[in-house]
């Protein structure tokens, strides 16, 4: 298989936009193409991610629409959907297209727009990523799924609501350093603890927001990468699944798909958790960050809450997690999130992250989780 590198990244401001998904994606994609220093004509395929455009915008067939708005309407396109892991899944497939020698320059990304919808409608559409036969009729929501994980983690390991709150405080501190973040303000532990309950034990400040935004990256073969400014190499990119049914999860306090995808990505890369300098992981809820830091092998099972409390995952700590502010503060435009996480790690490995730069970062990990913990993607990237 051929080596593959990221040579360009683009992310819109995250927050509320009066623009369509295709417009948001196209802005990010144009930035990524210009950052890559290639002509739009060089792009050979588009792997596009979006989740609820069919429900919210009554728009299907989004791949060619995105390419048309970008201004390169004749390239082959495919739309991906794996709930919140959507554009990371698109990324992995695009990497395989280049590794296999089919193409040399591929554009990957996604967009989401939900802030134009009423909150109960957006909550309903996000819940479509849970099983429609048993779980949606019972009234489960996306925060509800992670509340079940949180309760199981608390019962098994003694993890506390305060430890979860530390994740939110830390990610807001990081987000305050990111000009693209939806929330660029710090919050206190007390604010998190006193915020309204959404799905017990999760409170408003344990939850990532609804977000509009787009993100894109340009990935290329080694031959093209050698002619570019600061290529960041993809050491491994792996996907794993777990049962779609919450009633079939073997252990609700773990995300087994994270553990499987991480093992596969580490194997491809010939690296382990001890080699990772910076992480962007899927903190859709504070408990999700705690469980992910365990599943990715950074901390022993049951100790992720302690790591958050002790500040080990903050900028300047042992292992900085979510320097971008994460989904919690940067925002979570679900179809764009995976590509935005890759963009942050590329920015970190290029040493271009400004005040949120992780000193000396050479190897970065990207972790993206889909919906009810049934889909996970993990990729490892390196500046060398």
């Amino acid at each position: 298989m051929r080596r593959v590198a990221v040579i360009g990244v683009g992310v819109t401001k995250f927050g509320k936009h009066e623009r369509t998904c295709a417009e948001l994606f196209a802005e990010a994609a144009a930035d990524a193409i210009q950052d890559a220093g290639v002509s739009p004509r060089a792009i050979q395929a588009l792997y596009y991610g979006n989740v609820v455009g069919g429900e919210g915008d009554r728009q299907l067939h989004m791949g060619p629409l995105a390419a048309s708005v970008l201004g390169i309407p004749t390239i082959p396109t495919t739309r991906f959907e794996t709930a919140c892991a959507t554009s990371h899944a698109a990324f992995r497939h695009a990497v395989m297209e280049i590794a296999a020698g089919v193409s040399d320059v591929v554009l990957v990304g996604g967009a989401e727009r939900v802030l134009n919808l009423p909150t109960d409608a957006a909550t309903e559409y996000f819940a479509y990523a849970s099983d429609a036969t048993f779980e949606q009729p019972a009234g489960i929501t996306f925060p509800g799924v992670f509340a079940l994980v949180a309760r199981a983690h608390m019962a098994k390991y003694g993890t506390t609501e305060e430890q979860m709150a530390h994740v939110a405080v830390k990610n807001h501190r990081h987000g305050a350093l990111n000009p693209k973040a939806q929330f660029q303000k710090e919050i206190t532990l007390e604010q998190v603890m006193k915020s309204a309950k959404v799905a017990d034990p999760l409170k408003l400040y344990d939850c990532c927001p609804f977000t509009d935004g787009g993100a894109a990256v340009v990935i290329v073969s080694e031959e093209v990468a050698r002619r570019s400014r600061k290529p960041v190499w993809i050491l491994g990119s792996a996907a794993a699944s777990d049962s779609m049914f919450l009633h079939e999860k073997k252990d609700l306090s773990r995300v087994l798909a994270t553990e499987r995808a991480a093992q596969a990505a580490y194997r491809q890369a010939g690296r382990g958790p001890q080699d990772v300098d910076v992480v962007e992981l899927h903190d859709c809820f504070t408990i999700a960050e705690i469980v992910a830091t365990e599943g990715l092998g950074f901390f022993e099972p049951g100790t992720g809450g302690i790591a958050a409390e002790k500040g080990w995952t903050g900028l300047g700590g042992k292992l900085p997690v979510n320097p971008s502010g994460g989904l919690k503060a940067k925002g979570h435009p679900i179809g764009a999130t995976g590509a935005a996480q890759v963009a942050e790690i590329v920015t970190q490995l290029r040493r271009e992250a400004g005040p949120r730069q992780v000193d000396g970062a050479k190897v970065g990990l990207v972790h993206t989780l889909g919906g009810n913990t049934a889909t996970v993607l993990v990729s490892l990237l390196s500046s060398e």
Partner: protein
Amino acid sequence: MSKVVTLKAFFEEARAGRLTGIRCGRCGEIAIPPKEFCPACQERAWEPVPLDGHGTIASFTVIRVPPRGRAEEAPYAVAVVKLNEGVSLLGRILDIPLDALKVGMPVRFRPLLREEQTVVAFGPP
């Protein structure tokens, strides 16, 4: 021969107050339908098996921000219940005070009927 239990049949039985599982004819694994291959041994030899509906709460949450159409029902609890036969099932909690819910609490299956729809639910044993 595998005897398939369709979702339609599962929910028709559930509506009448009976929970139906499936048992693998090779390894004895019990699952909730629908399923073709046994996840444990990959055999395709299911037999329907009645489940007695008793179990304990493995995890639960109280939904306070509900999806569209559920506003009048909120707040309500949803739990994953580990049944005595070893399989788990997710359902709505009925007739148990929200602040009394605990991991490990015994509960018993009963259907929640909503016009044409049957929802898995659990109440006091």
